[in-house]
């Protein structure tokens, strides 16, 4: 080899090697790409995602309907004549594949028929539809569970059961997965109709409803004006619903103990507004009349513009009251869900009803209690016709009087779990009607053998499914 020609030859060799390497990499990229995408026929488009639109635009796909490979020797003039006769046009000639043309049909004929037409022609080697390429659905990725920073969260088996204290892993409401979608909203108000709420509890104080400055004090023709800054006490018809029992504070914490605040526990809703209402006294019992008065208050506040969409009612008796039923129906007409405890007598509510949970009013959701092994709690009432759903209700840790926390059991505890999930759903879909909200809760359950023939839905509430 001539020494003067040596360098140009080396340079040429290097270029060839680089081209070959690039071509190899190109093929690998092509293979990878094919394995990651799914292909949808152009004429069978679904509503495009933003990613799909971007990809389609970047590849200039979507306009030519078919790809046709003409046989060797067929001239461009012949191809133009054929396409012109069919009122088509060559949209692009693929230079590196002689005879391969992307053809656009100007009549917008169906791509399948076009393929059939071209395939019959003697000049054509093959014809196929121009498929649109889109990214796979998996690009959105699975939801990642979200865990709160609350020191006693690991004791809240109802929210996340890891098998602690002999429980069954997964026997919970899937709260961390739900929190990947929403942790609640301070736009949603939940009325806790109970023994009042300790609205100064450190884990509740930031999630308590406070009457907005632009909302006038509560006025009742018989009771007069009540300055309901913190809620309503129907026992004394006063403005102070402070809890002197603990039951209402416990229920409030289950719904909405502030989440991830490095204090105590997390509520089903990290953010929510708890409207405290008191109709039960320090002993934990109250009258039907005061319950009615408190529900009336909720309805009036809803009418005045407060977004109170849920009443959590962890109480009841076997006494039926037509008046109580009527006011709950009125709440339904105002778009308020009424979540009620099924009762703790281990009996069948279909045969021995428990009220208000057994009222046949569309907004009533009757709740049974489950233990940490997904078994119906030994004390829980049930009813394949009259009890709608089950939720964790045994050894439930929540807020108590004096900035304390206690574990309690009962359908009282299962009820605010469901009320809390309802609030999560509304945080995610605020426009739902009360009927849609109830349906969403009952169709989002995990079916359990232990609940077969025990509750209407046959399952335990699942927050993650409810907010999907």
């Amino acid at each position, binding site marked *: 080899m001539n020494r003067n020609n040596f360098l140009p030859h080396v340079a040429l060799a290097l270029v060839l090697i680089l081209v070959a390497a690039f071509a190899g990499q190109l093929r690998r990229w092509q293979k990878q790409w094919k394995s990651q995408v799914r292909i949808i026929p152009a004429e069978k488009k679904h509503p495009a995602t933003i990613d799909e639109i971007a990809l389609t635009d970047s590849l200039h796909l979507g306009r030519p309907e078919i790809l046709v490979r003409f046989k060797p020797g067929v001239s461009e003039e012949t191809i133009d004549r054929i396409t012109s006769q069919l009122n088509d046009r060559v949209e692009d000639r693929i230079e590196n594949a002689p005879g391969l043309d992307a053809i656009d049909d100007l009549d917008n004929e169906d791509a399948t028929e076009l393929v059939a037409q071209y395939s019959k022609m003697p000049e054509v080697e093959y014809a196929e539809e121009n498929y649109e390429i889109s990214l796979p659905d998996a690009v959105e990725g699975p939801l990642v569970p979200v865990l709160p920073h609350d020191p006693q969260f690991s004791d809240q088996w109802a929210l996340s059961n890891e098998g602690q204290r002999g429980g069954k892993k997964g026997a919970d409401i899937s709260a961390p997965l739900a929190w990947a979608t929403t942790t609640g909203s301070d736009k949603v108000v939940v009325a806790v109709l109970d023994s009042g709420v300790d609205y100064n509890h450190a884990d509740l104080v930031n999630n308590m409803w406070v009457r907005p400055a632009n909302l006038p004090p509560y006025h009742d023709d018989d009771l007069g004006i009540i300055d309901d800054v913190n809620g309503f006490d129907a026992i004394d018809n006063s403005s102070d619903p402070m809890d002197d029992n603990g039951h209402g504070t416990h229920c409030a914490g289950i719904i909405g103990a502030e989440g991830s605040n490095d204090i105590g526990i997390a509520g089903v809703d990290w953010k929510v507004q708890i409207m405290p209402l008191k*109709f039960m006294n320090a002993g*934990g019992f109250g009258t039907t009349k005061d319950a009615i008065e408190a529900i009336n208050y909720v309805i009036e506040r809803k009418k005045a513009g407060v977004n109170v969409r849920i009443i959590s009612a962890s109480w*009841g008796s076997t006494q039926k*009251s037509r008046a109580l039923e009527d006011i709950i129906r009125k709440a339904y007409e105002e778009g308020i869900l009424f979540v009620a405890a099924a009762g703790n007598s281990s009996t069948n509510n279909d045969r021995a009803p428990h009220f208000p949970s057994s009222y046949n009013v569309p907004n009533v959701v009757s709740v049974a209690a489950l233990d940490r092994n997904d078994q119906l709690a030994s004390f829980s009432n049930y009813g394949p016709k009259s009890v709608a759903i089950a939720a964790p209700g045994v050894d439930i840790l929540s807020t108590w009087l004096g900035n304390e926390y206690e574990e*309690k059991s009962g359908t009282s505890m299962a009820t605010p779990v469901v009320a809390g999930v309802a609030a999560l759903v509304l945080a995610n879909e605020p426009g739902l009607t009360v009927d849609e909200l109830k349906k969403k809760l009952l169709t989002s359950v995990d079916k359990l053998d232990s609940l077969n023939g025990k509750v209407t839905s046959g399952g335990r509430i699942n927050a993650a499914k409810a907010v999907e």
Partner: protein
Amino acid sequence: MSLTKEDALSKAQKDLAKRLNVEESSIKEKSTDEVDFPDMALGAGTEDEMSGQMLTRGWRIRLDSAGKTFEYRADKNQVRLFNFKGKNYKI
């Protein structure tokens, strides 16, 4: 008000003596057991009463008067007479 077991027993004995119109000393304690009642009315709700549906720790007090047994239910907040002539009473 936070009742002890002894307070509750004493209140129950006084109440029964009054209802039966007998001397308090004739009312004998048969048993007092610590139990979980099904609700906050201790499973002894009265007419027109709603109660929290939370299991409530308290005492079942059985008293004897002239060979008949009467049941009282109590916790730190209250004492109730259970199923006396078909009715429950808050004491």
